[in-house]
């Protein structure tokens, strides 16, 4: 069987493209290198829906950012992921910084962003009482917001799959051969699996350069740029209402204070070049750097509130812009590369843009007669009233069995995640939030592992954190040889 389109990479770009294509008569397959979707760049992300003022509209990334920003309400209505348009404040603490603020504001106006508001100190403190009162001025972008990026990817993929898109995880494309005679691509995975498709979309994030290379398309280099983030307890008194941005630097939009869509507070990210595309380590120096920076902006940030930290890598091209185009070297091959910030914001528009490129490439896209436009409502007990919980309990008693105490996640939610194919501990965690709270799985990970094992049939000792060799346990008690006690 030959697919019409193979999308390499199930991050925000690939997933958004899959969701777009799933509305048309088009056999699409989504190929993901890791054990679950969104496990690359998309997972470790600030989760910001940007306001369209950081980059000049002459860049592709700004065009798609502005368009993408407008598409989230509809997508959220259809797919039901956590998203809030709570607004962005860019704040300055000196007259010198105010010059940059004015420039950004002007750029936003020039980009056609509506409702931007220049603010003096008092107005800023009214909009955000948690700000350091030494703030000088800034502006308010009410169109900005926050989103849970992994949940967004899960939703897009789930929606696409309901409309017939297929998904293969742990599919690391190592070879791509164009069969000119019969006009299709043959993609081979590291484990030997093969699939064929008429067209390829290269949305491989950090590895887009390698995919392009093995497919004989353009040669370019993706430079990983690391961003560390630190997550604060949901009880942190520092949680602001809005996303707080400093004035940006050349390489990044700066270190932010982010009220996440799920009620926690995140501080970060850094922006430092990394050597290794798999290097997601964090460092003590960067933690101190981040904390010092955000403390200048917002009151009440304490290292005692840190519950976890992580790092993600931005896939950066030399040009610093997105590279989304039909390959000039390889036939029927679409490049979606360099999707760094504001890639998440732009992603709904990236999916559309790629769809249009496929049309340009000669693909006939006929709308389906029956499209699943909306995912069924997903119950999450943390958001339900006691009366709804009572009803859910009658349906399945496991709705009122709380497994994760910190984030309030029921056994029924864990089971739903496993049945949808999320069988790693991280997959279940990102799908349900189980283990994401202040105890970081100290109490619930043993329970969650038992549920995954029971529902999936994978023995406990074979369960992994995130696929591959990330085995969670060392084996069954009694399987290891015991050394005798040393002589005194």
């Amino acid at each position, binding site marked *: 069987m030959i697919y019409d389109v193979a999308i390499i990479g199930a991050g925000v770009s690939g997933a958004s493209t899959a969701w777009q294509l799933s509305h048309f008569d088009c056999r699409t397959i989504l190929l993901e290198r890791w054990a679950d979707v969104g496990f690359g760049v998309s997972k470790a992300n600030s989760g910001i829906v940007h306001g369209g003022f950081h980059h000049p509209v002459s860049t592709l990334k700004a065009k798609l950012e502005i368009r993408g920003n407008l598409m989230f309400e509809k997508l959220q209505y259809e797919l039901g992921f956590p998203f809030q348009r709570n607004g962005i404040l860019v704040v300055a603490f000196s007259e010198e910084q105010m010059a940059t603020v004015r420039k950004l504001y002007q750029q936003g106006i020039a980009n056609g962003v509506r409702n931007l508001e220049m603010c003096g100190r008092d107005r800023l403190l009214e909009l955000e009482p948690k700000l350091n009162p030494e703030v000088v001025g800034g502006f308010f972008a009410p169109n900005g917001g926050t989103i849970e990026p992994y949940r967004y990817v899960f939703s897009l993929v789930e929606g696409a799959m309901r409309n017939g898109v297929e998904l293969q995880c742990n599919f690391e494309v190592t070879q791509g051969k164009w069969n000119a005679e019969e006009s299709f691509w043959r993609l081979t995975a590291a484990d030997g699996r093969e699939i064929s498709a008429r067209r390829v979309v290269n949305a491989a994030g950090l590895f887009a350069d390698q995919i392009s290379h093995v497919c004989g398309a353009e040669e370019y280099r993706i430079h990983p740029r690391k961003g560390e983030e630190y997550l604060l307890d949901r009880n942190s008194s520092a949680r602001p209402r809005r996303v707080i941005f400093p004035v940006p630097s050349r390489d990044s939009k700066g270190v932010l204070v982010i009220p996440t869509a799920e009620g926690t507070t995140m501080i970060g990210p850094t922006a430092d070049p990394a050597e290794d595309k798999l290097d997601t380590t964090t460092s003590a120096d960067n933690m101190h750097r981040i904390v010092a920076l955000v403390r200048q902006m917002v009151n009440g940030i304490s290292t005692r509130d840190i519950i976890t930290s992580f790092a993600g890598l931005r896939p950066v091209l030399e040009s610093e812009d997105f590279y989304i185009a039909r390959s000039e070297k390889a036939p029927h091959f679409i490049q979606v590369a360099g999707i760094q910030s504001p890639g998440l914001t732009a992603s709904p528009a990236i999916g559309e843009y790629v769809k249009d490129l496929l049309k340009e490439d000669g693909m006939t896209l006929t709308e389906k007669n029956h499209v699943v436009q909306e995912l069924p409502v997903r119950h999450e007990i943390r958001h339900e009233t006691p009366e709804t919980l009572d009803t859910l309990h009658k349906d399945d008693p496991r709705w009122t069995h709380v497994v994760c105490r910190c984030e309030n996640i029921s056994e029924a939610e864990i089971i739903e995640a496993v049945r949808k194919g999320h069988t790693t501990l991280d997959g279940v965690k990102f799908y349900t939030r189980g283990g994401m709270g202040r105890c970081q799985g100290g109490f619930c990970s043993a329970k969650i592992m038992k549920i995954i094992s029971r529902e999936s049939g994978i023995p*406990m000792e074979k369960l992994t954190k995130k696929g591959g060799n990330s085995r969670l346990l060392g084996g069954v008690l009694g399987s290891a040889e015991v050394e005798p006690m040393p002589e005194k």
Partner: protein
Amino acid sequence: MIEDRNVDVAVIGAGAAGLAAAAECADHGLETVVIDREELPGGILRQCIHNGFGLRYFHEELTGPEYADRVVERAAASGVKFQMNTTVSDVRREENGDFTLLLLSEQSGVTRVHARAVVLAMGCRERNRGNLAIPGGRPAGVFTAGCAQKLLNTEGMLPGKCAVIVGSGDIGLIMARRLRWSGVEVKAVVEIMPYASGLTRNVVQCLNDFNIPLYLEHSVVSINGRERVQSVDVAPLHDGIPILEQKFTINCDTVLFSVGLIPENELAARLGVELNPATGGALVDADYQTSVPGVFSGGNVLHVHDLVDFVSEEAARAGRAVIRYLEGATAAERNPVRAGANLKYVVPGYYARGRDTVFAFRPLGVWASAMLEAELDGRVIWKRRCSHVRPAEMLLAELSGQLLNAPGTLEFRLRPEQDEAAVEEA
């Protein structure tokens, strides 16, 4: 329909603390329910299959589950009702001073309990890698010591093959031995302080007996590995700062964290209970009553204890205070109690004139001997010499009501008399 139920006392948590408080109340004829998430009452004792429990309270050495069985039997015999597999998802104080608890459980779904008094006995959670923001990668194989203990002792699963333990808290020390006995190699225990944070007897029985090295004044500066832990980098500390030039690598596939406990006071916060930043627990008076009338607290959720025996004793006192409260006794006087020199905290945070009171402390250092003193408005009213003082071991002082005869501020302090080193040299 959500079922409603009325009781006199709702105890949240069926560990040693909750069971002791509940037994006192039920003995007195109060209708008492203990609510707990787990299937069996007994709390964390259930996974502590080692011995060393009960020497003080039962005058014999018991394992954790044996201690749990005894206190469960005692509570059941008193008429305590158990509501297991149940999570308290909300608790509120009504206008009339009673409390409404919203309960979730697989068996009975959503129910409400109305109680005249509430005892907070939720215990602790473990500090984890995330709280310390230990640098490095995010591989599998990183556990809190208690989580590994649960996996090993209740699920029969080994956490890995070769471990390094970060922190020398009691659970970490006990787990070092437990892992060794299960065939898991233990490469090292790494502690940032110049002394072990666990009890001395555990250092001797769990590390020394197995030649497991204890690196004092060292810190794990990186956890290495992408999929599964491959090694940790360890560096000596100078004034609390790691000397990275002297760091060394220990290969291992497992890292356990035993770096302290945090009282689980999220429900307390929901009730508006005032907390003591030094303990992480509620600020209580001589009756273990919190700032919210009718809400009492005892055991590890109040402050972290080293021995379960002390937990049982303290929570039983809280239980007896609940009885007095429900009989209409006036609240205990609130004269402030302060932790002075060399003490991290003192519990309770208030004293009442004329009331016999047991005060609990954590020392801030290690001394061969030190004088524990109580001063009431400039006058030393009580003192006792303590030997073998260390932060791992809680100090207790029982002051009679006759001594506490004046209003004012009561301050406890520890006056060091002899260093540990001096004793060793002698």
